[in-house]
């Protein structure tokens, strides 16, 4: 079981969904904080969902307030970075570039992409955590049995 979990995790890294930051977070997980990473992920997704919503609305309005969009994205990027959501982060950067360029079209496109990445990651992580929980709290991250 743990092996499976480990493999999944490995693949996430390999595919670039996650980066070292995620690993650092995992290191923070310990007895005092057994589900730290999962908790943080949950938080992240909750937050980011809200952000995505905001951006969606802003974009739908059609008024492209690039400054505002940029600041949303900045926030998004911040949290994505903190959790190690690599691909999402990359999309954020692109989005911001388009914002600064005033490229509404580009923004829209990127944003769609971003949403996709975001939900993919979410699913994968959820799956991962599920397995990890099944495999046993502590060992999953460290020692595959």
């Amino acid at each position, binding site marked *: 079981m743990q092996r499976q979990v480990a493999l999944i995790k490995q693949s996430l890294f390999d595919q670039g969904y996650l980066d070292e*930051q995620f690993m*650092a*977070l995992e*290191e*923070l997980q310990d007895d*005092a*904080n057994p589900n*730290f990473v999962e*908790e*943080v992920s949950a*938080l*992240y997704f*909750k*937050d*980011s969902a809200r952000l995505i919503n905001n951006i969606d609305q802003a974009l739908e309005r059609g008024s492209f307030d690039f400054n505002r969009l940029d*600041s949303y994205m*900045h*926030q998004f*990027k*911040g*949290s994505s*970075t*903190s*959790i*190690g959501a690599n691909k999402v982060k990359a999309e954020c950067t692109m989005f911001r570039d388009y914002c600064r360029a005033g490229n509404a079209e580009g923004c829209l496109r990127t944003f769609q992409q971003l949403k996709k990445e975001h939900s993919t990651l979410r699913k994968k992580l959820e799956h991962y955590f599920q397995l990890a929980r099944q495999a046993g709290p502590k060992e999953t991250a460290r020692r595959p049995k």
Partner: protein
Amino acid sequence: MTVEQNFEALDQFPVGMRVLAVDDDQTCLKILETLLHHCQYHVTTTNQAQKALELLRENKNKFDLVISDVDMPDMDGFKLLELVGLEMDLPVIMLSAHSDPKYVMKGVTHGACDYLLKPVRIEELKNIWQHVVRSRFDKNRGSNNGEKRDGSGNEGVGNSDQNNNGRVNRKRKDQYNEDEDEERDDNDDSSAQKKQRVVWTVELHKKFVAAVNQLGYEKAMPKKILDLMNVEKLTRENVASHLQKFRLYLKRISGVTNQQALMANSDLHFLQMNCSLNGLDGFHHRPIPVGPGQFHGGAAAMRPYPSNGILGRLNTPSGIGVRNLSSPPPGMFLQNQTDLGKFHHVSSLPLNHTDGGNILQGLPMPLEFDQLHQTNNNIRNMNNNNKSIAANSMAYPNFSTQQNSLISAPNNNNLLVLEGHPQASPSSFQGHQINKRLEHWPNAVSSSSTLPPPTAQNSHHDSLEWNNVSSSYSIPFCDSTTPGLDTTNPRAFCRNTDFDSNEQPGSFYDSLQMRQSGNYGPTTDVMLSSNSSKEGFVVGQQQKLQSGGFMSGDAGSLDDIVNSTMKQEQSQGDLSGGELGYGGFSSLRTCL
């Protein structure tokens, strides 16, 4: 990760360091919290800047360090940074995903001790405690030099850390010690924050005096005074030092008038003295090219007063006075030794000048003198003559003798030999007078290029000068160098024709004041100019004096002054000559 194993909380700094983390992003906040926990800090989190401020304001001693995100919806991180730095004086670390150097720069200029980029790594957080230590260290060093004691031993760190920790611990412990908090806070506030020079304006001083009166002179305690005064941004320390000066000042002039009068009038005078000193400070330290040993020597000698903040200001007058004594040429009004406590320095000055030197009765016009000194050799001579620049702004009787000599001694230096008029009622504000005078100095100076005839003119000039001086002095000293400060009785010296009224010590200022307004013509110019330029008139005068002995040039204008002063002088009696020590110090007018 390396962690100290002892969890004895506070004494194990940096373990247990109390951090307040602020970030609107929940994810980041959580991560940050965990990271900080892993560094064994004690963490409080909030995602709102307002809440953070509340927490901090509630008890500024509850936290050692604040980490804040830059982009927050309810308040800009930089703004929070500023506020925390100002109000609570805590080290703040900025956190942001912006790696743009512009932001980093902004953080630094707003006072952040550090700027971290997201995602934050634990290695970076492990070191943030150094900021706390550093800031406490600086604070302690700045303010509590005497209070340091070695803290309890902390493990895991070197000796220096031990000391630091000790200090930190002490500080922390002290923080829990209510009694000391205030002192410390005051100290910290004063040293850690930008030390705002408290300028003891007339209004402020009036409040101060009122408070002292209310409490009773004997019973006046800085804390109570501070409470009564109810002035924002005034610390107990400010009041304490001012009180000390005030007390000394009163002692000085107590011989002249009664306490009450002094108290009443002293505002300006006191301020003047102080102010001028402060202002003159600049002079003092000005490289005295004149080189004459006297000046410099005098100046050096006279510079006893410390120029720290308020005290510095207050002391300047004394300093000035002192300066005058030593070097100042005639014009200097040096307070009598007995004067102004601070002005003690003056006493140290070579009062032995046969001529009584420049006894600046009343407020020493250091500015002027310095100027003079610097430029005038005459002044030097004057020094010799004047030595006793007994700047008794307040009627220093003892000057009379000197004064005489002063007066007689030609003030080649154009020193304003403001002989201490015994009658000068220094109490009130000679400073004001002087200040006012000083204002006029420039004008006066110019006019008084030539020293007025020694005796007659001197006296006149002296008074004038003195008046001028006083006015001018006040300028440097009090921010409120407004002529309105005439309330103080200028010493009789005020060459103002109004002098007559100055007979009385108390009235001295008044007369001076009056004089100032009136006479300031030429002489004042001198003084004033000097004041204004700080070198202007006095020095200029000096120069002139030197050349022509007395400021002949100014004579014209000086004459007026002289006449007026003469009248006053006569009324003053002793003031003649000696006091004014004009001897061509029309420029010196700096008299008090």
